[in-house]
């Protein structure tokens, strides 16, 4: 795109936020504004569009330093409430991953496994200010002679606790069905046989990456809402794949961009960071994440005006195709269809269900809007943008 009719800088928008004059709307509100006024007028009127998403996001976890004891320990194995954490970092540093099940979990040996407690639940308990039992084993060294440590830890007393999620906020995701004759249990939830239900998992028009499909305002250092507190985009997430088919609006038609994010766990809230158990699949963490998108010009107004009718995804069979690595789509549907409660495939009407909470995503977008309106949250200009597709 060439020259813009409207052009604002991060600094100008932040000055307006500080002066309490910034116009902030949610991505849901922006749809009507752009439809009514057009992109240029919308860009003149609106300064920031807030987005939100809240759903299970695997590839989440937390870095924790649990402090030195006397005598000291160089922990080589650590458990938090019985859930193994990775301790091969330093003497008392660990990383607790969201999908790690409790050590003695029967997993899928008792089928379908319930996975009632895992790393995501540990993080949830920590942000709920519940005490968590830490046990550590070590081989003992001259400087750190202790070989065993048992203690109760509470988040506020930990020297350091940072949520650091290597892959969050997927830009689009498959809609899952099951064509086989048996119920299956997947990370997309329980799928009834013969396409008895269809599960999907993004907040559609509220999703941060659908509102900035080419990542023109998101990058390293972008300040975001994370788990009820403040966080930052660190880099593209793992499996970030911007080079997929896109529609005429630039919206990817299948899973594409992802974000790696981090933030101070101590300032987060259990309402936006919940441990989850996916029947027959495993544990994870539901993460609340919201990104403010500066309306720098009419191009960003156009992007943030996206609605569920404009966003499509692929219906994929998780019974036979997906396990074979074959993500051949059975159909293409819009998020408006998915949100309506049913879709039709080959003449069959199928009930749809989200795994991602639209209502809580909207709550996050509204909360972020309030923070910005009150001047508590300023936008940060990214140091480097998230890499976009090679051919735009």
């Amino acid at each position, binding site marked *: 795109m060439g020259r813009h009719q409207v052009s604002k800088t991060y600094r100008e928008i932040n000055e307006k936020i500080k002066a309490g004059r910034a116009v902030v709307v949610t991505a849901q509100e922006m749809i009507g504004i752009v439809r009514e006024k057009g992109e240029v007028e919308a860009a003149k009127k609106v300064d920031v569009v807030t987005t939100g998403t*809240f*759903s*299970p996001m695997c590839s989440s976890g937390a870095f924790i330093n649990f402090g030195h004891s006397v005598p000291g320990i160089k922990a080589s194995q650590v458990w938090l409430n019985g859930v193994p954490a990775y301790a091969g970092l330093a003497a008392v540093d660990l990383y607790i991953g969201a999908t790690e099940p409790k050590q003695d979990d029967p997993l899928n040996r008792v089928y*379908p496994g*319930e996975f*009632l407690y895992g790393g995501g639940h540990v993080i949830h308990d920590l942000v709920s200010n519940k005490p968590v039992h830490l046990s550590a084993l070590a081989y003992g060294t001259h400087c750190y002679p202790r070989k065993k440590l048992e203690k109760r830890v509470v988040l506020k007393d930990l020297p350091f606790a940072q949520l650091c999620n290597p892959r969050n906020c997927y830009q689009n995701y498959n809609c899952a069905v099951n064509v086989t004759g048996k119920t299956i249990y997947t990370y997309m*939830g*329980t799928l*009834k046989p013969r396409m008895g*239900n*269809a*599960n999907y998992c993004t907040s559609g028009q509220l999703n941060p990456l659908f509102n900035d499909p080419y990542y023109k305002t998101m990058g390293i250092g972008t300040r975001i809402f994370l788990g009820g507190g403040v966080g930052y985009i660190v880099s593209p997430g793992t499996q970030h794949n911007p080079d997929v088919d896109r529609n005429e609006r630039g919206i990817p038609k299948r899973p594409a961009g992802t974000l790696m994010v981090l933030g101070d766990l101590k300032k987060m809230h259990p309402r936006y960071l*919940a*441990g*989850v*158990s*996916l*029947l027959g699949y495993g544990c*994870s963490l*539901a993460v609340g994440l919201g990104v403010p998108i500066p309306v720098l010009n009419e191009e960003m107004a156009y992007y943030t005006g996206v609605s569920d009718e404009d966003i499509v995804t692929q219906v994929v069979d998780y019974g036979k195709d997906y396990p074979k690595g074959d993500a051949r789509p059975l159909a293409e549907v819009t998020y408006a269809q998915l*949100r*309506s*409660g049913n879709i039709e495939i080959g003449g069959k009407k199928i*009930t*749809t*269900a*989200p*795994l*991602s*909470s*639209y*209502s*809580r995503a*909207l709550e996050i977008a509204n909360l972020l809007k309030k923070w910005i309106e009150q001047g508590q949250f300023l936008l940060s200009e990214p140091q480097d943008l998230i890499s976009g597709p090679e051919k735009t």
Partner: protein
Amino acid sequence: MYKRMLVLRFPPQITDQPLVCTLTREFDLCFNILKAEILPGQEGIMVLEVSGHKKNVTDGLRFLRDVGVKIKSVEQEIRRNDDMCIQCGACTGICPTNALTLDRDTMEVIFDPKQCKGCELCVAVCPVRAMEIRFSKETVLL
């Protein structure tokens, strides 16, 4: 096959009588006792799944009522813990009776206990285990 999940309460004066086996002997019903606490001289409580022909189930339950057993359907015992529910909607695709639905405007999950038949599919499907079966005596005695 018609199936009901019930909470039976036995008044203290009849806890010494063999009543549940009568459901099989005289009404051709199958039963599965999920929980029972029957002690002499105290009110007894039992969580029971009964299955068979619908007419036989109706007749068998009438027999129990006639001898003084108080019967409550278990569907009233499935509850949603609203503090835990994250409003995702995963349960709505699995609920066969539309007791769990999404309000299409707000996308909030609505639980209508009146529509619930107590199949329990939602209990394990809920990612945060917000759907609870309350079989405990304390809850049943509320």
